[in-house]
């Protein structure tokens, strides 16, 4: 790996925290509907959970065993942990300030969280009833001081802790009453929200509050001197970490202990907990000082995601934007007919994912199709794609599916449907050793009067019709001969039928994608050095690869105009004199999850445009099987370039990265008409197209076909 001066590289963890902060700023954005704001807040919570389990956990192990190893920004693990703690403490305070504000607004709209002492009458009776009949029977409090071995606390579960004064235990030498610590685990089978009867609006009480208020019932004869709610986050196990911290795993493998219990990486306590309780729990959990966070409100804000799904409060949510299908796709009898005539570029979720699904289903049923190949990664539970593949195999077609089982948290579910596919006669390949298959490609080989023809779908998103309504992704459908040959060769290479070979147009990681990207960047650099113009526009989720960052800096010094739209982590430092003056980094965080990787290189005026499944990160370019697809079709390319342009034009959902590593929100006056919202613009354009087609239909009269014509 090349070395960069450490100041030229922004620490990856801190950059991630800034991304989470941008999500938090969406939660703080008063121009947005309140339940959407709550959703953003919940996302910051679940994001942080994962960050602690995967990233902080990894760093903690490193700091204990290998603290001299510095990251590209020159920070030792312990320094990173300290910085993370500082930043997260501020962020948590912001989260709860935001929570309070949202709660006020929700209360005004009729969504009301009550505390146990506020309950009266019927509500109080109901709470009592629920506690006695549904909660208490399943709780099993544990006194910690008289156990032979400390129990293992469950990752991310809520607990109520109490200090008990027991007169029976006698007094200590110093005359203080004996104190013992007990905890009440709140099992995950119990719902967090307890709905209360109400005459209007939605009233609820949180389960931990209820349990805390009734805690004394569990310890008869003892008095509760101190009480607190807390939550523990543990280090994720190594297999889980493969997905989010490949860079750390290599280092960790040599030092990791065989022990099953993972360390406590975070202890969250409610704001009212006493110092004594904090010390007792820290000691009990062996939690380092910088692992403790105080919550000024309910713990685990991610749980409030459930509240955003409340029905009947549509006025507190975004106006729905139902996905549209381009009119020219609706009228054709078969997707094959359209793709044979023209390439199709779809931009989800503004445009529907249905045509892609329809294409796969038609391929499965079309008697002319002889073979089908597809990669599957994080597909939805009852995926119609999977059903289509099984159907195709049952119909005697040769079907190959590359199934990636390592998709985080989905493993068991994946195995189940993968076995079903095998039973149906599909050749299922369970990924490639040591590499995660992240490429998204589908081929149907079809016998036509002029010979065999390959029809492909290349995408930036998973074959998952559910996430396709939330993630913004590009789909490219084509029967281009070169891309077909490449797609076949790609499958042959991952199924082990052939050695990797040079492709005609595409590029695949880990064998040549990084090199291709760098050579595309260098080509722009070279053009500028020779006095021509050079520019790059690229949109991706994260940018961390030092080799690519280095190439971008060199390009900037040659005068290449570089506009990056990076949703998440960006380790590149833009706009720095003598380093990156010509680089601008924007980030869009908003209604949809930016997920499309679209890159444009000016190439002396003959723009080269690509879609890709990879980010410019080590894990994507070095440890995964990813696909880079050039889009040479004129209309599709123009569409992608327009998408890029609008993304950079956006102010409503965008931030700009400053040279010092901080982010500046582009929209100063929230909600003002001056702001340009690319999401709205994308949707408007899509609607405009389909509405125009409808209008055209209305103004044109179509006669019935004569009997002869119908034949």
């Amino acid at each position, binding site marked *: 790996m090349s070395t960069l001066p450490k100041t030229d590289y922004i620490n990856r963890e801190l950059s991630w925290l800034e991304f989470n902060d941008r999500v938090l700023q969406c939660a703080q954005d008063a121009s947005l509907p309140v339940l959407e704001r709550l959703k953003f807040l919940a996302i910051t919570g679940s994001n942080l959970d994962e960050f602690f389990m995967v990233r902080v956990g990894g760093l903690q192990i490193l700091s204990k065993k290998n603290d001299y190893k510095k990251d590209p920004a020159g920070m030792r693990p312990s320094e990173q942990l300290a910085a993370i703690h500082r930043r997260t403490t501020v962020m948590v305070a912001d989260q709860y300030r935001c929570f309070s504000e949202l709660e006020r607004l929700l209360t005004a709209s009729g969504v009301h969280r009550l505390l146990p002492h506020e309950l009266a009458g019927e509500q109080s009776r109901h709470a009592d009833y629920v506690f006695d009949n549904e909660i208490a029977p399943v709780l099993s409090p544990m006194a910690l001081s008289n156990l032979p071995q400390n129990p293992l606390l469950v990752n991310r579960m809520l607990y109520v802790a109490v200090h008990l004064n027991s007169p029976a235990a006698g007094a200590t030498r110093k005359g203080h009453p004996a104190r013992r610590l007990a905890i009440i685990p709140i099992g995950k089978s119990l719902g967090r929200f307890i709905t209360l009867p109400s005459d209007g609006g939605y009233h609820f009480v949180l389960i931990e509050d209820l349990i805390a208020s009734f805690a004394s019932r569990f310890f008869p004869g003892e008095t509760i001197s101190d009480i607190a709610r807390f939550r523990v986050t543990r280090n994720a196990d190594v297999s889980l970490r493969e997905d989010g911290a490949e860079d750390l795993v290599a280092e960790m493998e040599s030092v990791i202990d065989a022990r099953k219990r993972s360390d406590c990486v975070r202890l969250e306590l409610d704001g009212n907990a006493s110092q004594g309780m904090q010390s007792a729990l820290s000691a009990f959990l062996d939690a380092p000082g910088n692992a403790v966070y105080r919550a000024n409100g309910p713990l685990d804000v991610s749980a409030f995601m459930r509240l955003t799904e409340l029905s009947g409060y549509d006025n507190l949510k975004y106006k729905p934007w139902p996905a549209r299908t381009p009119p020219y796709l609706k009228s054709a009898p078969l997707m094959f007919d359209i793709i044979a005539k023209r390439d199709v570029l779809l931009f989800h979720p503004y445009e529907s994912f249905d045509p892609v699904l329809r294409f796969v289903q038609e391929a499965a049923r079309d008697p002319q199709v*002889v073979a089908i190949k597809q990669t599957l990664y994080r597909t939805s539970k009852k995926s119609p794609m999977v059903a289509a593949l099984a159907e195709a195999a049952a119909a005697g077609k040769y079907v190959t599916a590359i199934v990636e089982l390592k998709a985080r948290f989905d493993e068991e579910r994946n195995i189940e449907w993968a076995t079903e596919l095998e039973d149906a006669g599909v050749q299922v390949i369970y990924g490639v050793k040591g590499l995660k298959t992240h490429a998204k490609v589908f081929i149907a080989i079809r016998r036509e009067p*002029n010979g065999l023809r390959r029809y492909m779908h290349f995408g930036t998103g998973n074959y998952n019709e559910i996430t396709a309504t939330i993630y913004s992704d590009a789909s490219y459908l084509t029967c281009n001969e070169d891309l077909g040959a490449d797609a*076949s*060769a790609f499958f042959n290479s991952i199924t082990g*039928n*052939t050695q*990797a070979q040079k492709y005609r147009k595409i590029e695949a990681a880990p064998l040549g994608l990084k090199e291709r990207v760098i050579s595309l960047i260098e*080509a722009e650099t070279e053009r500028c050095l020779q006095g021509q113009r050079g520019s790059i526009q690229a949109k991706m989720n994260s940018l961390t690869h030092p080799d690519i960052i280095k190439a971008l800096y060199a390009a900037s010094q040659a005068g290449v105009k570089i506009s990056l739209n990076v949703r998440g982590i960006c380790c590149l430092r833009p706009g720095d004199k003598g380093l990156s003056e010509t680089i601008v980094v924007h980030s869009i965080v908003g209604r949809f999850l930016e997920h499309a990787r679209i890159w444009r290189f000016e190439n002396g005026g003959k723009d080269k445009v690509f879609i890709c499944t990879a980010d410019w990160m080590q894990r994507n370019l070095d440890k995964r099987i990813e696909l880079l697809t050039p889009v040479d079709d004129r209309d599709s390319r123009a569409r992608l370039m327009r998408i890029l342009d609008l993304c950079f034009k956006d102010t409503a959902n965008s931030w700009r990265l400053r040279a010092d590593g901080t982010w500046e929100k582009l929209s100063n006056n929230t909600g003002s008409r001056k702001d340009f919202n690319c999401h709205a613009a994308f949707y408007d354009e899509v609607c405009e197209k389909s509405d125009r087609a409808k209008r055209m239909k209305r103004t044109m009269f179509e006669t019935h076909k004569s009997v002869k014509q119908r034949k």
Partner: protein
Amino acid sequence: MKKNTPVHAVATSNPIAVVDIGTTSIRMTVAQVDPSGISHPLEFLQQGVSLGKDTFTKGNIEKGTIEECVRTLKNFRRVLEEYGITQDDRIRAVATTAVREAGNRDAFIDRMYIATGIRVEILDDRDVTRLTYLSARSLLSRDASLSRGQVVVCEMGGGSTEMLLLAKGNIVATHSFKLGALRLREMLEKFNAPVSRQRTLMVSEIKRTITQILHSIPASTIRNMTALGGDVRFAAHRLIPDYNPLLPARLPLGALENFTEEVMTLSVNDCVRKYKMSFPDAETLAPSLLFYCMLGRAFSLKSVIASDISMRHGILIEMTRSEPPGDDFARQVIRSAWEIARKYKCDEAHARHVTSLAGELFSSLAEEHQCGPWHKLLLTVAGILHDIGIFINPRSHHKHSMYLVQNSELFGLSRRDILLVALITRYHRRATPKALHQEYAGLDREARLAVAKLAAILRVADALDRSHSQRIAGILCARDKDRFVIAVPHVDDLALEQVALQNKGDMFEEVYGMTPVVEKKGASQF
């Protein structure tokens, strides 16, 4: 029934496949053929195998390697099934040097057939050259700038180097040298040469072959050099940003040399790591690039052309054309025969005349000999070459002709066909075939008959130009009971030819059961 279905319609809906079992890898191309007969590749698969390593160092293919080949062919088989390719006439599987030279080649081929149902056919050098030519012709014809002047097409394979010399798309000469990239590697390993010496050894080995090449191909005539194979295409990928392997690309020799220098400093392991290539590919990279660079220098060229010409492509062309050796192909064979005839300073006018007379006799006797155009081609080549032995010594020149033919680089003919031509020239005078004659006796019956039928005709044709003055022309042939009458116009004095025929007509009589006689036109009643 549709009557006007074009010939290629069947091929169009039926993709075909070529499997090439080479020195370092097994490759397969699946292609479909469009109505104009051009094949479009659908898939290309490649798997490294150490066949060459086994054969060149141990003489035999190891059991493990055989099973590797079985596994690879089984994988390929699955891809073939996806395309519905199951019949033999749609797959052609060939093996080259590494299998050909292996002691256990028959066992190898049997094992492949038993395990995978794929019949592997062994190609000799001449087959490879012929097939490469077919590919080269179709690709170079698309780009006029590449076929200007004399063009050398060369490929350094793992076990041998094949060279074609083309002028205006026509074959001028073909050569095959026993210098191969893998052979070079193996040689270095056998000598256990230290890294510092490896380069010197390779250079001196290549220099030796280049000296031989320059002996056959004068450097001054060469305008372009096209290099084939994965190694040079790999270099093209590195040197040209937007390299499209389907199109020929010019690599400046200087740049190629610089890149070769870079490769030369790397070990095979380093190549694999740095260029993300397979081991078999990495092993041949340095030797073959070095060879192309040195050859380019030897020809004083400024660039080397990388192209997609390949034997596999040639096989595809051969599989898809309706009649196996087309007229154009025959023309190339004949051209190559003339090159050799000139080299041995033959009497061109005589050779041309005898060949033409033989052709006329061959046509007149079609009913008797029942031979096709391929045999006619062999007769033509034998006619052109029948007297080249005079270059050595007029005495027993038929015997000299025979071994010269046997050892010439006759383009387009297989070893067996060349032996037939050699025997036809041998029997153009003096002794008729005897069981004592080793080469003749070694042939199967069909081949022996072909030699006899064709040599008999050549003898008569040669007798007719006994004067070497080409005065016998415009002959008319007729059968008259047990006589085969050759009527000659415009010649009064036929005594010379009549005597010659008495001497040389014996074999004709034995084979066709008729006595050949020459008469003045109108002298006989028929």
